[in-house]
């Protein structure tokens, strides 16, 4: 090997090494600052749209005052159906964001609707204490059944279904839905 060939080989090797270290650091840094749950489920957004363009089936559930409420009353709006429960910490964590988004986007046609697997009186108390500003539907077994019908096979929470103005399911979100993701969706659908 001539000395110039050896130099080139050395430089190429060094370049590959630097690229490798850089890429590894990049991957490492990608992992570090992100909440693993958020990161894991952020990617879910794209993958969960496997059944898009399905109409939301009509249904009725009780509200916290035990009055039947039909989903039809929000026809024409971008409906965010959020399945949650008081025993689910990630569900409770996202409620303040949903409250703020309802406040900010309500006038533009966004309607959040909570669907809780808890008993009505528990949800009523919780909604009052947390000053939730959107309707809550309840029904332990019926809410779970509805979630499964909409694609939540495991029954895991939180689970959020976003319905466009025409009544079609635009997105299904497993896990927490961040403000950024919600706003991106609203920009597309409003």
């Amino acid at each position, binding site marked *: 090997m001539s000395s110039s060939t050896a130099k080139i080989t050395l430089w190429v090797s060094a370049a590959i090494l630097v690229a490798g270290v850089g890429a590894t650091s990049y991957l490492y840094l990608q992992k570090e600052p992100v909440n693993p749950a958020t990161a894991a*489920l952020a990617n879910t957004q794209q993958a969960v749209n496997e059944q898009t363009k399905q109409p939301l089936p009509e249904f009725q559930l009780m509200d916290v005052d035990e009055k039947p409420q039909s989903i039809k009353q929000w026809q024409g709006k971008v409906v965010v159906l959020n399945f949650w429960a008081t*025993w689910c910490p*990630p569900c409770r964590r996202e409620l303040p964001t949903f409250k703020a988004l309802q406040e900010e986007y309500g006038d533009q046609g966004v309607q959040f609707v909570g669907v809780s697997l808890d008993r009505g009186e528990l949800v009523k108390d919780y909604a009052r204490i947390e000053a939730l500003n959107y309707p809550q539907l309840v029904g332990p077994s019926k809410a779970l059944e509805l979630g499964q019908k909409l694609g939540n096979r495991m029954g895991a929470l939180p689970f959020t279904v976003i319905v466009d103005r025409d009544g079609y399911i635009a997105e299904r979100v497993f896990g927490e839905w961040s403000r950024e993701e919600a706003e991106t969706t609203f920009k597309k659908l409003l």
Partner: protein
Amino acid sequence: MRVAALLIALVISGPGVAASQDDLLPPEEAFVVEVRTIDAQTLRARWVIADGYFLYREKISFSTDTPGYRVGEVRFPPGKIKDDPYFGRTETYRYQVMVDVPLVREPGAAPTLTLIAHSQGCADLGVCYPPQKRNIPISLSSAQDVSSGELLPALALNPQNSLSR
């Protein structure tokens, strides 16, 4: 060039996180319960918890609806303490937890019963499962029986919509 392509592919594929609910275990696989008969008054229950999942201590309990039997007080080992902004101080178990379940048996009760194991847990991916209820048939005539729980969600479900895959 090949190295660059590989690096780009690695970056695009991200840090190896879940892509959909297909990456979640069904609850009966994430939380497996086995019950062994120790003696005529004691059962030993062991929860095997998949990596990346955890159970809440205060949500684990046992009961029975078999006439002539009652479940005594269960003492739990200490779990991992976590300060949750929404729940305050919570205690969780990972990997496994084993407890003795004392039985109070009335004279003349048949030597078989159904133990109901209640639990509730979450996945590190950021979702929680509804409270689970498993019915475990127990025979006290054999001291070494091991039974696995049949999964029954605590919430009434349409039988056509099973939680399992």
